[in-house]
């Protein structure tokens, strides 16, 4: 269609919207936001007559590239170090995608502007596209990459593993609770507008550097739909801003959504990009550099700050604090180290770091070696089974962390850990902001105001609780992370596929039982708890125990 006729066609489909005369549509979801009806423009200007063929054309490119990759033997050149992390990433991401589809109807009745609903329906089907195209990519990896273990059990793993649980926030947060908090602020204003650039652009670039050009093919195609979704979010945000009564809630939700996205996405994508790559060219951007560009400059400076004049209270302090965590407090390094510590509870293999990696880290993050170098040398030393336990159960001066009740990433920056007693249970949090999210934001009142539609944090949020007192071999069997010989683990702390070098259930059987930090914490007397906390926050970096008192 010509430009002219697209504009006309779009104008015409505005005639489709109508107001009910006899029955109101069912109202399944609530919000504490208020919107006054105003004539709005559909920000998408998308007509299905051109949309469907456009998407089909994008598909042709994606599937053409997939065929080419297989015929061209792409997998002879992919780095296993990189592909192994895709077992985690591609187990997580199809659910957030499909949850974004499911989230769209939360906005139908809560935002009373039928002009926006056409765009939301298109976003819905875009997200069905993203979810299934990603499942398909994973299937291709399973069929063509050397080690299918972990891909073949992907969605079961995702659902019962603690890493999957962390990632799942980035899905369930879209579809529950206050409809605007979930489907607008958390999903479109923060997750899509801020973080899809690191997810779908920065990470695929790293994939290409590791010999995999299919991830960029699929994810750039996904990202090309994203600008539409960002427009949807922006239109809703401007409407919300028009009512002063919403400003307090917007401030709350932006703080929660920003901080949670930082905690979750930076943990995962930061680890993939920094520890999953073999590309150690000094001039390739580090995750911190990418973050500065995509998130700080493009999102914060160019997108958020200009909204201040409309009354949006921007969490400047939390943007700076996220950067502080990444740059000064080693957030990504702490997370990667934790993943590697707990390799035996995972469903992918984690390659040890080499001298070449050390050099790159030291160059990009001065002081890295002093903090993390020794531990990674130990990881390397303990990677093949040789009469010792997995690293988590050996003395390498690493204190197993408590989990954050809110973001479920462990409390790795030890000095930031805080606690609270909530509903009769002592909980640990990785940061004051995560405590605030649980104790203040996700509550039926906020700063004295009734917020009856706000959601709740639910579920068994500490994974270790489920296995308190269990033998590790039973834990791994219970989760199903065992290969087809009935004993070799899916996860390995190295990339060697020689069966004699691989860890088995027999090795785990000899280990001491798993202990839940939260169960133990709740057994402490108040004095013990205080002493525990005082000691915990003196620990680190790199999980080191607190120095003995002088």
């Amino acid at each position: 269609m010509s430009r002219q006729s697209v504009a006309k066609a779009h104008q015409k489909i505005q005639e489709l919207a109508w107001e009910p005369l006899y029955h109101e549509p069912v109202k399944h979801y609530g919000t504490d936001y208020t919107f006054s009806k105003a004539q709005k423009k559909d920000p998408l200007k998308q007509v299905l007559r051109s949309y469907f063929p456009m998407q089909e054309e994008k598909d042709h490119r994606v599937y053409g590239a997939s065929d080419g990759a297989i015929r061209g033997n792409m997998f002879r050149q992919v780095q296993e170090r990189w592909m192994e992390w895709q077992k985690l990433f591609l187990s997580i991401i199809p659910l957030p995608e499909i949850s974004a589809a499911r989230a769209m109807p939360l906005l139908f009745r809560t935002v009373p502007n039928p002009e926006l609903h056409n765009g939301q329906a298109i976003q819905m089907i875009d997200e069905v596209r993203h979810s299934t195209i990603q499942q398909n990519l994973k299937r291709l990896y399973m069929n063509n990459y050397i080690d299918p273990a972990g891909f073949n059990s992907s969605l079961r793993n995702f659902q019962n593993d603690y890493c999957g649980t962390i990632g799942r926030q980035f899905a369930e947060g879209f579809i529950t609770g206050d409809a605007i908090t979930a489907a607008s602020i958390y999903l479109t204003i923060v997750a899509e507008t801020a973080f899809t650039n690191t997810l779908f652009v920065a990470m695929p670039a790293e994939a290409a550097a590791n010999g995999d050009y299919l991830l960029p093919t699929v994810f750039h195609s996904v990202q090309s739909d994203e600008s539409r979704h960002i427009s949807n979010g922006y239109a809703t945000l401007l409407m919300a801003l028009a009512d002063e009564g919403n400003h307090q809630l917007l401030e709350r939700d932006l703080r929660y959504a920003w901080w949670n996205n930082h905690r979750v996405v930076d943990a995962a994508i930061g680890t993939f990009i920094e520890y999953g790559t073999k590309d150690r060219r000094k001039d390739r951007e580090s995750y911190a550099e990418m973050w500065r560009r995509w998130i700080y400059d493009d999102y914060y400076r160019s997108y958020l700050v200009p909204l201040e004049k409309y009354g949006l209270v921007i969490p400047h302090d939390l943007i700076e604090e996220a950067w502080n965590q990444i740059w000064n407090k080693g957030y990504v390094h702490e997370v990667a180290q934790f993943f590697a510590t707990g390799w035996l509870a995972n469903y992918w293999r984690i390659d040890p770091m080499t001298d070449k990696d050390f050099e790159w880290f030291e160059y990009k993050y001065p002081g890295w070696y002093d903090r993390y170098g020794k531990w990674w040398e130990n990881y390397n030393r303990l990677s093949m089974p040789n009469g010792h336990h997995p690293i988590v159960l050996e003395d390498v001066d690493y204190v197993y962390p408590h989990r954050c009740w809110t973001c479920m990433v462990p409390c790795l920056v030890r000095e930031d850990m805080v606690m609270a007693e909530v509903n009769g249970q002592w909980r640990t949090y990785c940061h004051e902001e995560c405590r605030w999210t649980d104790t203040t934001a996700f509550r039926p009142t906020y700063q004295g105001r009734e917020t009856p539609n706000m959601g709740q944090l639910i579920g068994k949020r500490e994974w270790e609780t489920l296995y308190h007192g269990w033998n590790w071999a039973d834990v791994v069997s219970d989760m199903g992370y065992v290969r087809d010989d009935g004993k070799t683990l899916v996860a390995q702390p190295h990339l060697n596929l020689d069966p004699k070098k691989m860890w088995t259930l027999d090795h785990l059987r000899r280990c001491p039982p798993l202990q839940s930090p939260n169960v133990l914490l709740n057994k402490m007397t108040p004095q013990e708890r205080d002493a525990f906390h005082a000691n915990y926050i003196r620990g680190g970096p790199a999980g080191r125990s607190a120095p003995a008192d002088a």
Partner: protein
Amino acid sequence: MTTAQERSVPKPVFTDAEAGAKEFPDSTVRRYNYYIPQKRKQTHYEDVTVEVQPDPRHYLSQGWLYGFSDGRGGYPLDWTALKAWGSDRPEPERFPGSGGKGYDWPAHGWHEFRDPNEEWELTLYRYNSNVVRQLNQNIAAARQAKAFEQWNPNWVRFVESHVGAWMHVDHGLGLYLFANANRRAPTNMHNNAISVNSMHRIRAAQDLALYNLTLSEEIAGFDGAVHVETWNGDPAWQGVRKTAEALTAIDDWCEAIFAANVVFEPLVGELFRSNLVQQASPGNGDWVTPTIIGAEEYDYAERDLRYTKAMFDLLTNDREFADHNKAIMQQWLSTWVPRCIAAARTLQPLWSQPDSKPPRFEDGLDRAKSRFSGILSELGLQTPKELAQ
């Protein structure tokens, strides 16, 4: 003078990381092993669809993490009154040392549903692109052939008002019934099929709107705005409108799909499309409108009804709740059949408007009723007495 600086690019490395390069445990286990396929072999559709939406009854060991204000998260099974086997078993309890195992997959019968259309992104874009391309070509060909010049004035009025009014039904149900329901069902198989159904309806609405736009450009005196007045005020349409609005007000997602696709579409949708527009067009010199309406007819009859039947067939044959489900569906029939029959009868004045008359209204309605009864008997349901109205 310039010196060529070496560009910094990642170097390709031969890693030999392709399938089959080595033998080791799991090296040949190349299928998704967390679900049982419907037939002997796992299909491509199943691989990209099944289990993406988790369930605390089997693998989701830590449960849902975010809830609504009442503390309920995920996709509660009681968002419909229908039940699939296993639905009444409690969620597995978790406590210190409980372990993470739930019931064996699938844990309950909802997970056994498969969309017989096997819709995922590749199929849905291919199908809908073909439809819009074909429609564009039909309309372009009609323009070139000056096909619209043959229409008599009454037929022009009929198309601008009544064919035009139908776009509002498609749009309203597409968004507020079908898209709305894509958040409600307990499995990804259901919700994906429902979202594809939603796009069919929204596309059909836009097809009609854009056709209406073309006619405004092609036919002198064609009123491109009158469809809105017809929908808002023509008494013949108020029965359909009232019923369509009532459909969007249904709380129970199964009832919504059932009332729309099992009751409303055969008794009202097909009555209007197949038994009125398609029958009246040729006699009034119109061979273009049937191609637009025919696309939507195909969406419903060959795709949307197909998954709907598979979905409810599983429930009327459920090994634990077949009787429970049939009793509820019979109640839904008692509610929705009279409403849809009333809507159909309110449309009757349309039959006398074209110069060349379609077959009698009562004959059309009889055909729609017998088609409807056939669907019910395939599902093992009784024709409700209200059908005689």
